[in-house]
């Protein structure tokens, strides 16, 4: 490994060859402002078009300023990061960007979280010396994402996420010069494109050009309507990230405070999607075992591997891109939709409330869940099973609006019966978690034996593609895991080619799984945050008394009182679904 010595702001630095000036400066605590650049370590995600020039620095002996994010450190280099010349150049660049940017920070969804706004503050911009034409593009609203193209600064991070990481290919830079923007083909609306609504473009957009559809207003109206019973479910990944919105360190678990906050917001019952995750395992696990036993008995028509189906962006992805494989994923609905379905039948019945008067709200780390809840098959006579799906960020917004001092709230429990969950339900929030939960239950049902261990380290981690073989008492079960749709694509191509070695595959669209979902607090390019959230999820699992879905007493009760058995006719009707060819 070659070593490079250089000086940044007169401080000596030693770095590996190939390191950029930006990283070298960072290593000694010098923070050079950036806009277009983004690098998510460990996930192999990088966007460095070198286009914005916000990161320019002075290099001794060079006439022009150099962009730090894409200039390699070289031996003996002398770099100045904050001379007058540099600062003026940065200010000019930012002023030019602002001269073609709508100045509506006061009412922008991204205000307070916007990297452009931060830059303007940091550089002390008080006046824009360049008056020019303002571009005007129409707004594009879809069931989950709003594109406000006027706010696009052409950093092209969204393109990197959509094309390279997700391989969906919806977004591309179009037109040139002043008219250049990032848009879907033929500037069609997202709604008409093959967009999966994974929201990874939203997660990395530095400005308010891409945001989720805001449903907080509708939820507030429902909460203040005395004729409605309003209940809420919270997805596993939310509790591992919500605290960040209130200044708590990444990886702080706030399960109890979140329940307390929801109760104070006026929800009549505070329930947990983890309960529905346990239910998903009962259905999906049974389906897996059914297919496996048929396969072992020599049934040639059985479809293997079975693919998980909890992630709506992944579902939309294969419906568009691999419609011929639509019989392979499990037919089990996602936990969000199972919850909605059970809430508006079983629970509404228990309360004696009509389904129209029961409003189901979910809190999700996810943007695609908004789209999922709007799919027609998840409604009865036009009344959706899940009325509103808010992101983690939207929940934080509600809590701030209600003036709750989140950090000093007491820890409270979820309500029953739809609030009890096991550790298996919790780990649905991270890549590898759904399949580990399935293994814990399937193993015991299949072998009739109690598991000798509960932690399957071989299924955990952050690598984009992972595989492991689990010994089901003499029967080896091959498991594949992919997060990020580009990784999923590789596994699907193997299946298409008939070379897949797997019996079961877990797929989550977002890097890291739902902990890295498009609706989570912004990580601003710091991938460490995802790892801390993942750790928190596994810690929550460890803390649970029950860690296997089939041991959840309320799940047992639900089958006894209402559903009968997994894959019963009623279960099929309420908890399973079908997929469509959208190619």
């Amino acid at each position: 490994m070659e070593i490079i010595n250089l000086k940044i702001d007169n401080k000596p630095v030693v770095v590996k060859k190939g390191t950029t000036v930006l990283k070298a400066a960072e290593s000694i605590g010098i923070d050079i402002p950036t806009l277009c650049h983004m690098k998510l370590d460990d996930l192999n995600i990088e966007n460095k078009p070198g286009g914005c020039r916000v990161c320019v620095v002075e290099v001794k002996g060079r006439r022009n300023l150099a962009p730090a994010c894409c200039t390699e450190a070289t031996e003996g280099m002398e770099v100045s990061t904050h001379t007058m010349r540099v600062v003026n150049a940065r200010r000019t660049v930012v002023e030019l960007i602002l001269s073609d940017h709508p100045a509506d920070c006061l009412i922008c969804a991204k205000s307070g979280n916007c990297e452009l706004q931060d830059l303007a503050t940091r550089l002390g911009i008080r006046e824009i010396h360049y008056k020019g034409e303002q571009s005007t593009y129409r707004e594009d609203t879809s069931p989950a994402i709003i594109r406000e193209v006027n706010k696009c600064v052409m950093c092209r991070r969204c393109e990197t996420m959509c094309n390279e990481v997700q391989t969906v290919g919806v977004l591309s830079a179009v037109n040139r010069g002043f008219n250049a923007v990032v848009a879907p083909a033929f500037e069609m609306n997202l709604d008409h494109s093959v967009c999966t609504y994974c929201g990874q473009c939203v997660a990395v957009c530095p400005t308010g050009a891409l945001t989720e559809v805001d449903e907080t207003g509708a939820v507030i109206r429902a909460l203040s309507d005395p004729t409605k019973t309003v209940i809420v479910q919270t997805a596993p990944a939310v509790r591992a990230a919500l605290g960040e919105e209130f200044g708590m360190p990444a990886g702080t678990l706030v399960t109890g405070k979140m329940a307390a906050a929801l109760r104070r917001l006026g929800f009549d019952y505070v329930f947990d999607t983890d309960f529905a995750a346990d239910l998903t395992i009962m259905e999906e696990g049974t389906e897996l075992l059914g297919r496996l036993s048929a396969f072992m008995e020599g049934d040639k028509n059985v479809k293997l591997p079975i693919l998980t189906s909890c992630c709506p962006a992944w579902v939309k992805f294969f419906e568009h891109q691999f419609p011929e494989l639509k019989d392979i994923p499990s037919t089990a609905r996602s936990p969000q939709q199972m919850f909605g379905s059970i809430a508006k039948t079983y629970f509404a019945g228990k309360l004696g409330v009509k389904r129209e008067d029961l409003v189901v709200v979910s809190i999700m780390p996810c943007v695609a869940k908004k789209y999922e809840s709007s799919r027609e098959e998840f409604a009865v006579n036009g009344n959706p099973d899940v009325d509103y799906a808010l992101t983690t960020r939207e929940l934080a917004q509600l809590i701030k609006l209600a003036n709750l001092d989140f950090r000093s709230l007491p820890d409270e429990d979820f309500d029953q019966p739809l609030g009890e969950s096991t550790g298996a339900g919790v780990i649905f929030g991270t890549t590898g978690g759904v399949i580990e939960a399935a293994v814990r239950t399937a193993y015991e049902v299949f072998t009739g034996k109690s598991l000798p261990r509960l932690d399957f380290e071989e299924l955990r981690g952050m690598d984009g593609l992972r595989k492991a073989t689990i010994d089901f008492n003499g029967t080896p079960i091959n498991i594949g895991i992919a997060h990020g749709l580009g990784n999923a694509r590789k596994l699907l191509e193997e299946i298409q080619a008939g070379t897949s070695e797997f019996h079961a595959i877990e797929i989550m669209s977002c890097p890291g799984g739902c902990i890295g979902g498009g609706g989570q607090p912004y990580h601003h390019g710091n991938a460490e945050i995802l790892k801390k959230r993942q750790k928190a999820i596994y810690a929550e699992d460890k803390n649970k008394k029950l860690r296997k879905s089939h041991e959840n007493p309320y799940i047992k009760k639900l089958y006894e009182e209402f559903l009968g058995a997994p894959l019963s006719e009623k279960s099929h009707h309420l908890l399973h679904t079908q997929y469509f060819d959208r190619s």
Partner: protein
Amino acid sequence: MPKIKLAEKAVDLIREICTKFNNDEGELINVLHQVQSKLGYLPAEVQEVIARELNISVAKVYGVVTFYSFFTMLPKGQHPISVCMGTACYVRGAEQVLSEIKRQLSIEVGETTPDGRFSLSCLRCVGACGLAPVVMVGEKVYGRVSPQQVHKIIAEYKEGCAAEAKTA
């Protein structure tokens, strides 16, 4: 944008061109160039076929088509009019000439008249700066064009067509 259904023949032609370039995405610009020279323009449906053949996203193809003003998504008129917007032409009044053409034909740059007779585009320096401002109709070059002359130039082609129609 009106959806058109591509003729089997056109699809085969596009495939052929893509194969000639080994379906290599790095050759996208050349593929687009050749397809446009055969079909005259690159409507959405054509871009979709190209994207499929080269195994890239339609958005990317569309991005390249909209980046280069040479490519067009609309069929060219019988008489494509191009106005040079190079520096010399610009300072000698090309913009006024352009707006006069737009006004008389009621179309914008990149559009075609509803009767399909004229289309309008802008070019960068065509290398005849001595004649600035320069307008081209098809292959024919008009130099030192003033807004007042626009009517006459256009009329030439209207009549030309009428005459052709008579003889036909």
